[in-house]
C-alpha cells in the first residue's frame, strides 16, 4: 500500500483544506508575500516571511493555477507499492502566486511533459480523511 500522509501540527491546515479541494500556501500578514508551506525539502517550519522577515505567516488559498517549473522521471523502485507506476513523474510547479511546490503532474504521459506547460491543481482522496494535491494539464 502506498504511504498515506499523517497530519501533524505543521501540516494539518494544509491537509484539512485539501479535503475541501483547496490548495493552501503561506502568506505574510505584513507584506502579503506568498511562500511555500515548507522551507526546504523536509523542513516544515517557516516562522518568518522571506521577503520582509515579519513573523507568523498565515495560511491562504492558492488560485490553483501553476506552470511546470521542472520535472524528473523516477525509475528506481524504493517501495513495492509503486511497482506498477515506474517510471512515474515527480514535479516542481510554480503557482501563479510565485511559489514553487514539489508535486506530481496527473493525467499526462511522461513523453508529453514540458517545462512551462500550464497546470491546474487536482485532488485525489487517498483515504477517508486524506486528500493529496497534484497538477493536471490545464484545458
Amino acid at each position, binding site marked *: 500500500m502506498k504511504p498515506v500522509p499523517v497530519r501533524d501540527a505543521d501540516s494539518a491546515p494544509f491537509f484539512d483544506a485539501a479535503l475541501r479541494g483547496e490548495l493552501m500556501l503561506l502568506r505574510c500578514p505584513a507584506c502579503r508575500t506568498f511562500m511555500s508551506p515548507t522551507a526546504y525539502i*523536509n523542513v516544515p517550519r517557516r516562522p518568518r516571511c522571506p521577503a520582509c522577515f515579519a513573523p507568523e505567516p498565515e495560511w491562504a488559498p492558492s488560485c490553483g493555477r501553476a506552470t511546470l517549473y521542472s520535472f524528473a522521471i523516477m525509475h528506481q523502485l524504493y517501495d513495492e507499492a509503486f511497482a506498477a507506476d515506474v517510471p512515474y513523474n515527480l514535479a516542481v510547479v510554480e503557482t501563479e502566486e510565485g511559489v514553487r511546490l514539489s508535486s506530481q503532474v496527473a493525467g499526462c504521459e511522461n513523453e508529453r511533459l514540458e517545462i512551462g506547460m500550464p497546470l491546474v491543481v487536482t485532488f485525489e482522496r487517498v483515504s477517508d480523511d486524506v486528500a493529496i494535491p497534484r497538477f493536471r494539464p490545464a484545458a
Partner: protein
Amino acid sequence: MRGATAAIAGLGVTEMGKVYGRTASDFAGEAIALALADAGLAASDVDGLLVNGNHSEEMVPTLQFSLGFLDLTLVNVMSAFGATAATMLQCAADAIARGQANVVACVYSDVPLREGGSASQSAYSGKQAPTGFAGLRSAYGDYGPANTMYAMALRRHMHLYGTDHDQLGTIAVGQRQWARMNSHAQMRAPMTLADYHASRWVVEPLHLFDCCLVSNGGVAVIVTSAERAADLRQPPVHLRGFGQCAPGDPARSGREPAVHTGARTSGEMALREAGIGLEDVDLLELYDCYTYTVLVTLEDYGFCGKGEGGEFVADGKLGPGGSLPCNTGGGQLSSYYMWGFTPLAEGVIQARGEAGERQVEKHDHVLVSGNGGVLNFHSTAILGREAA
C-alpha cells in the same frame, strides 16, 4: 590577502567503500591517527578537533571523548552539509592565527552502507516516516529526494541551455580515467561514453553514472601553523583563501539557485584572498555529487560562461592529459564519497606532488569546492604549495 598563517600538515584516508562492521567513530579515529602519523605528530599534540556534522549520530562533540582527546581549546561540530570542509579549514586557520589552538584535527566519517544492502537502501535513501509534509513526498513516491531535486536542476539547465548527456558523460568518463590511477578509488573498471549512456536511469535525466557513490570510511586532515608545518614530515599545503555563499530560498519565483549557484561569489572571495586569478589555478577538485554539479560549478566559477558548461567540458579537458585537470582522484563519482573531504583529500595529495601516476605536472594552486543541499550551500578553498 591574508598573512601566511596555516597549512595542512597531515592527511589520513581510511579504507573506503563496502567496509562493514565498523563505526563512524572508529573510522574517524583511524583517519586522525593516519593523518597524525603522516604529519609526524602525536595524538597528545592535538588541541583542536573540528567534526564535520553529517547523518551519523557519532559525528557529535562527544567524539572527543570517544577518541580520548584531553584539554582541547577548540572543539566544534560544523555543518553546511557538503560545503563544510573549507569552512572547517577556515575555522582552524583562524583559531591558529589567534593562538587559540596549535594542532587542529578536522575529520569526516560515516557508515551509511549496510552489509547486504544496495546504495539505494543506505542511510541516504531518504525513506521517511509518512508524517506531515514528508508524508506527502512519500505519497508521491518521492524517495531519495536529493536524486530527484538534482534531476530537476539538471532538467532546468538542459531546458535553458541545451546541455546534453554526451557532455555530462564526458565528465563521468574523464573522472573514471583518473580513478583508474587511484588505489583508494572504489570504481576502477574502464568506462566508455557508451557505458555511460547504457547505465540505467535512476531518476531521469540522471543516469546511474551521473550519481556519486555511497561509501563507508573516514578522512582527516591536520591543520597547524605554516611555520610549524614547515618543520614536519610532509611538504606543507598552505591555506591561501576561503569563500562561502549560500543563495537561499529555492522555492520563490524568479530565483534559480540550482542554476546560478553560490560558487560565483564563493569563488571570487577565495581567489581574492589567495591573491590569484582563475588563470593561476592549476587544477580543480570540485564537489561532484552528480556530473551536473561539476558542470554548473565550472560555469559559476567563471571558467566558462553561464550555460556554456556542456560545450566547455565536451573536449575532455577535465580528464587525464587535458588542459584543466579536474577531480584527479576520480572524485565522488568514481573514487569515494566523503562529502567535502573527497575533493579536499585529493587536493592535498596533488598540491604535495604525491599523486604518483596521476600527478598533475603544475600544481602550485589547487581550487577545492564544497557543495551542500541541492546546490544551496557552497564553499571554496584555495590550496597552495607556497605560503603566498
